[in-house]
Structure formats: C-alpha cells, structure tokens
C-alpha cells in the first residue's frame, strides 16, 4: 500500500503578546479552535493530539481540558523544536494510518507569569544528575548560546555587528506584521549599544518574552479535497539531537540542524537554493547564524558576511522569519509552532503586508534547548 501524503490543513495563533486575562489552557483552546475552523474541521474530527508544556502528563491535561479523547498522543518535550518533531512524528503516524487528523497545540502565559511574579526570568535547574556538573556555575540559557557566539567569533572572525544584522532584519520584517510585539525599526548601532546580557550577546540579540500560543492541524491526503484552503504539503521532515550538558557539545559552531536538514532536504528532493521562504528558530541572533550554516544556505563560518545587507528581510534574497520571529514578534517559550504557522501562511499566499512573492517552497527549522535538538521541515504547495 502506498504511503499517504500529509498536508497542513489549518493554522492559527491564539492571542499573543501580553495577554493578562487568559490562562494558558484557555489560549491552547483558542488557538486550536481557530486552527480547526481554518481547516474546516470540528473538534470531534481530531484523533491525534501532539503537545508539550512544563507540566507532567501535559497531553493528558490538555486532552481532558479540550474534551478530546484522542487515540494517538505524543508528548515529546525537546524544547522549542518539539513542534517540528511533532510534525515529523505526525507524518509517520498519518502515513501509517494510525491517525487521520493531528492537532498540534501550544500556549503559555510566560510574560504575564513573570509580571505576576509567579516565575523568575532565569530558570533554576536543580543540581542533580548531569546538572550537578553545571548548575554551580550560573550558566544561564542566554549564556549557553553566548558561548557559541564567542567561539564562532574566535574561529571565523564573525563580528557582533554581523550578529546584530540578524536582529535588525527580524525587526524590519516585524514592522510589516501588525500583530508583532515590537515593530519600530532598529539599527546595528541600537543592537550593539543595548545592554550587555551575556557577552557577546546584548539585549537586542535576545528573543522577547510573550504570552500566547497556537495550533497546527495536519491531515491525510484523502481529507484534503474537503479543505477550504490550499493544502500545504509536508515534503520532508527530520529531527536530530545533540547534547543537554554543555560540555558534551562537540563543536560550538555547529548546530545539529546539519543532520536534520540533510535528511529533510533529501527526503523532499529539494536543495536550499530552491527555497523561497525560511522560518528558523531565533531565540538569539547566534541561533539564526548557526542554523543558516547548518541548513546549507552558506558554508560553515560564512554566516557573518552572509547575513549582511538585509539578506534576511522580506525583500532580501532569503526572506527569513517573515513575521518578525522570536526576536520581534512573539516568544512564549517553545516557539517552534509559530515557524510552521508562518510558513503555511506564506505558502498559501495569505501573509498580508509581508507576503513573499510566488512562495512555493519553505524550509522550517526549530531549535530546542541550547542547540540540543533540531527539527527540519520542507513544505510546499502545488
């Protein structure tokens, strides 16, 4: 029996930015309802649920809250790339006939929780297990990424101004997205002149913190004829894992995306040069730089010069993070789902005000943890 093809049928964000008047579960349902409506489907059509959060047994809590009793559940939690992993897993499940309608659903109230003082900005990881060899050193999440930037600058002469170009381009893209949290243009000088957080990263090299979430609905090809909108085909999907403990990362200048990208592009039969629009995890500017190299858009060590001159803006040679990304639009914590949502909008030609012309092929790359996990997707429309 031939494997069934899989399409993204519906996408939606919940409210995002600052949403002080809704719970995280409420925002899950809000995004899920909008995405199912976008797909022309009902909650009762969902037979696969894919979600993760901070709580134990999250998919059970969410399924119960939503009133769903799915027969296929996945709660993989590998950080911000979990959503790309979920697409990879959902494709396998749908191809094999294990489910027909997969709902990916995410939300947090990370920003409001910080303002309510029910969480801290930095996360205390208890010093048990492998963490006992790290926690005493105060290596923050930003610091872990900053060490990659330091090494890249040391080996390849990359400059903080080149990293800043990435933040400037994301902001330029955000200025064309009315929903983005930060829309006022910034300059390279603004970025390198902003407060030092963890050298060489400044405040404006770091993603913002928002509330919000969203949902993605994937269906088997035999459901596609009933869809109200153009199906976005998953042409290739793959995942890769690296380290969790920083000292286990072999090469601080190389994202494991090198491996997930090789397999995803290979499965899709697509080359990086054919990609019209790119959506990549931008927790920090260095995340984008290492990802561009690992995906093969430029050679290793060439990311600095590559991002100069606005190449990543919507009108540039490689439109990237067309919604403004996590650096300017939104970032509730595990942002990978928004990459898929924006790629689908671009491929459907629905990214009003920021549409990349004739976008037929998109690449998506989620990064989780601290370059710990990556999921790469190649998406396309007929």
């Amino acid at each position, binding site marked *: 029996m031939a494997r069934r093809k899989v399409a993204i049928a519906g996408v939606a964000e919940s409210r995002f930015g600052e949403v002080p008047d809704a719970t995280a579960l409420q925002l899950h349902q809000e995004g899920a309802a909008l995405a199912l409506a976008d797909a022309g489907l009902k909650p009762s059509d969902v037979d696969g649920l894919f979600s993760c959060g901070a709580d134990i047994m999250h998919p059970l809590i969410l399924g119960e809250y939503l009133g769903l009793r799915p027969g296929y559940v996945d709660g993989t939690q590998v950080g911000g790339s979990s959503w790309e992993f979920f697409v990879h897993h959902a494709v396998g499940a749908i191809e094999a006939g294990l489910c027909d309608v997969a709902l990916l659903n995410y939300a947090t109230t990370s920003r409001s929780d910080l303002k309510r003082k029910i969480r801290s900005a930095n996360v205390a990881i208890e010093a048990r297990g492998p963490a006992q060899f790290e926690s005493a050193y105060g290596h923050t999440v930003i610091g872990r990424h900053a060490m990659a930037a330091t090494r890249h600058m040391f080996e390849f002469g990359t400059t903080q101004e080149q990293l800043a170009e990435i933040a400037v381009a994301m902001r330029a893209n955000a200025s064309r997205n009315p929903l983005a949290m930060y829309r006022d243009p910034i300059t390279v000088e603004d970025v390198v002149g902003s407060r*030092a957080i963890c050298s060489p990263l400044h405040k404006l090299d770091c993603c913002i913190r928002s509330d919000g979430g969203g949902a993605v609905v994937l269906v088997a090809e035999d459901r596609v004829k009933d869809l109200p909108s153009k199906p976005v085909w998953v042409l290739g999907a793959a995942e890769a894992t690296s380290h969790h403990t920083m000292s*286990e990362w072999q090469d601080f200048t190389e994202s494991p995306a090198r491996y997930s990208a090789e397999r995803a592009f290979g499965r899709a039969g697509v080359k990086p040069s054919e990609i019209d629009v790119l959506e990549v995890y931008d927790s920090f500017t260095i995340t984008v730089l290492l990802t561009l190299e690992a995906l093969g858009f430029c050679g290793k060590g060439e990311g600095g010069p590559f991002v100069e001159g606005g190449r990543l803006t919507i009108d540039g040679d490689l439109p990237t993070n067309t919604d403004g990304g996590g650096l300017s639009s939104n970032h509730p914590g595990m942002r990978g789902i928004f990459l898929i949502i924006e790629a689908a909008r671009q491929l459907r030609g629905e990214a009003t005000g920021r549409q990349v012309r004739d976008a037929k092929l998109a690449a998506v790359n989620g990064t989780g943890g601290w370059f710990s996990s990556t999921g790469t997707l190649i998406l396309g429309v007929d």
Partner: protein
Amino acid sequence: MPKVATWHLPVADLETKPYWDATAQGTLLIKECHACGHVFFYPRNHCPSCWSTDTTWREASGRGTVYTFTVVYQNDLPPFRDRIPYVVAIVELDEGVRMTSNIEGVTPEDVRCGMPVQVGFRDEQRGDETIAIPIFRPA
C-alpha cells in the same frame, strides 16, 4: 542570618560521590575506560563511547585552556545575582575532556579563547556541609 541559596550546589549520587569526595581534597578526577581507552567527563558508570562498565577514576592534571566563554551580566537568581559580572567557560583539559566551569582571578573582560588555565576550588556551604566546586584561574 539571611537565607543562603543552595539549589545550585551539586547533589552527589552513587555514580559521582568519589568525584565530590576528591574535590574536597583538592583533587580533580576524570574517568577512563579500560576497554577502549576513552577518557571522559562528566563521569558516569559506563563508557559513553563503547558502553564498557570497566571504567576507572583518574586524577586530572588540572591544566587546560578556555575553549569558549561568556561574561554573564544578568541573572536574577540567587546566588548568581550577587556575583555578576562573572565568567562561565568551557575548559578543555590537557587530557582532552571538556568541563563547564567559572574562570576566576581575572578581570572578566580579559578572558580569551585559548587562554591557559589551572584548576582551583571554591568552597560553598550547604548547611554544615562544605562543597568544593572546581573552578579555573589563569595559569
């Protein structure tokens, strides 16, 4: 007395107690595999390269170089909020293994990749217990 943060201090377990016992004596231990010769850190019972459990502790020279680092200027968690700015680094020991650590005894902004460093120990308190945390200083 003000409450002292201890969440960040290592909790030794069955696999790692010899390591922390040694740091208390001013010694840095790494592990070596008898089966394949692989030297590794962080320490665990088996060799992560060949999965042999015929592994042993070995005293490290304590000499190494800075592979990469960051100067941390912002951390809202105690005790680190009272230490900023401080240096977090990945140190490559002469034996070839890497460990996460702090670089002390130097102006943070003067740390460089490739800088030679030597292990030292920072005593921290958890109740009556003194825990010796390996840190590095310019060699």
